[in-house]
């Protein structure tokens, strides 16, 4: 009898690790699909706040964020807008600092760095993603030179379709928050929440999309994906027209035919105070 019990215990020990129950958040019926920019009551906004953000509030780089309580009610716990609200509520509990991007200029970032976040930056649209679902966060337009850091957000049925970059660039894309599917080289695979990221070497095709877009996964929550590319993806910035050829009268007077300049969006379009016009032109410092 004792031996039988011991055998059962042993068998359980061997089998159990493969059937560990999971503790995902329960699916929420209130989740909204696809809608990335919602109507909001200004009274519900917790961000931006004047004492924390020197950048003009009308800048598209600055997200307008409803409180977590409102987001929970409107979108549920598994929507990326609720996670965004959660981030800004946590921010508001921390002491502010002058090195936050919302208080920094391009020149200050180049000199001493800055603290950015995954929700603030120049908006763009690419790879089949809907408007307001993609931002350039840390890239040459805000003072970095070697790495381009972008972020994509989505709930259900959002795809950053398969693509690759210039032959010099390799990229990592994280499943920073939520669940989804990733693509490298020749197929899609499931990506887990809490630590997964894909690595795409030079010229290797890659992509990311919501869970539930194939039989591999079931949709339970949205996703936030961050991309880190080195060298920075200049083809992306020119496609977005964040970097343009300078055809100003001053440039023409100097005989410049193909000198690139940042678009120079005023009003903090890059998520910083002011905007640079050139990456390396001394007169702009």
């Amino acid at each position, binding site marked *: 009898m004792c031996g039988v019990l011991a055998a059962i215990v042993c068998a359980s020990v061997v089998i159990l690790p493969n059937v560990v129950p999971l503790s995902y958040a329960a699916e929420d019926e209130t989740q909204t699909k696809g809608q990335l920019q919602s109507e909001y009551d200004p009274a519900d906004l917790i961000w931006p706040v004047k004492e924390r953000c020197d950048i003009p509030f009308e800048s598209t780089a600055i997200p307008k964020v409803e409180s977590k309580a409102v987001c929970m009610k409107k979108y549920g716990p598994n929507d990326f807008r609720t996670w965004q609200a959660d981030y800004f509520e946590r921010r508001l509990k921390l002491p502010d600092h002058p090195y936050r991007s919302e208080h920094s200029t391009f020149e200050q970032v180049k000199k001493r760095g800055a603290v950015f976040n995954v929700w603030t930056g120049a908006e763009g649209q690419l790879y089949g993603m809907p408007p307001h679902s993609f931002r350039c966060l840390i890239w040459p337009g805000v003072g970095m030179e070697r790495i381009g850091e972008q972020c994509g957000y989505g709930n259900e049925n959002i795809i950053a379709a398969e693509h690759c970059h210039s032959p010099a660039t390799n990229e990592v894309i994280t499943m920073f928050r939520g669940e989804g599917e*990733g693509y490298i080289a020749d197929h899609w695979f499931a990506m887990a929440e809490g630590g997964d990221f894909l690595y795409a070497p030079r010229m290797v095709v890659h992509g990311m999309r919501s869970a539930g877009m194939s039989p591999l996964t079931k949709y339970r929550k949205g996703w936030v994906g961050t991309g880190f590319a080195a060298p920075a993806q200049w083809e992306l910035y020119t496609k977005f027209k964040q970097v343009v050829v300078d055809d100003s009268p001053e440039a023409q007077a100097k005989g410049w035919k193909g000198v690139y300049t940042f678009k120079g969006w005023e009003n903090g379009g890059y998520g910083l105070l002011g905007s640079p016009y050139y990456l390396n032109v001394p007169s702009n410092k």
Partner: protein
Amino acid sequence: MRSNKSNTIFVMFLLATLAVVGASSVSAEDSDYIWPNPAFVTNAHMNSPGIPKVESVKVCMKKYGPNDWRTWRAQYFENRLALPDDPYRYEHTSFHDAFDRGMLCNIWTGTPVPMWGMDGESHRLILYPLTGSEMQQFSSAALHKGESCEIHSHYAGEEILAVWHGQGEVYLYDSWIPVTAGDLVYVPEGCPVAWRVPEDSEKDMVLFIITAPCPMSEYVKGGLIEPDKSENAQKAGWELVWKWKNPSLTGLIGNPDYLRYPGQR
């Protein structure tokens, strides 16, 4: 005679039972671990230092609580175990596969390297030249309350610190800044940087660290690469050709001794 035989059988049965019960009590401890799981990790690499040993969420919650990075790590691996596996996962990939077609990594798996006062369990190099990445290095740092790293700088590299889990503080240029999950810290070339979790913090902190270009000097300092002094190197007249000291540390399936050497493929 009959009696002796019965006694022998009884003693053998007793010994066998004790052995099985003893073995099962050892296994009971083993059963706290959910990773590495032989169905998801190639058997030959189950014991690589690059593959973490992870207890279940239930055990971690009981031992460490909900705000400890070991509990977050356990949750990740439980999430993994619920998903279909894939041949492009880190645990099924060789250096050359990673170099050619990329791979699916995670922040918890990679070469443990003590660096800047952090031990190898909490600081892992994930993507770097020994795992197929040439342009950028990706590493992770997991800190408990009261832990910190030394203030340091990279003379020839820029860095981004992504706060993936929890909260803490980052030292940038000349001051400490409170940070929380979702923050991204840009560190310019040569700028002093460090990170810590204050003793009174509610939570641990996990950073995902991106450095470009790869800091080869750190690999020399950390003892990851060394000049090849082998007989073959001497025969070839190599005076200062770098090789990886212990390629098996990564947890990948097969690594070269050299970064670029045709005979390795």
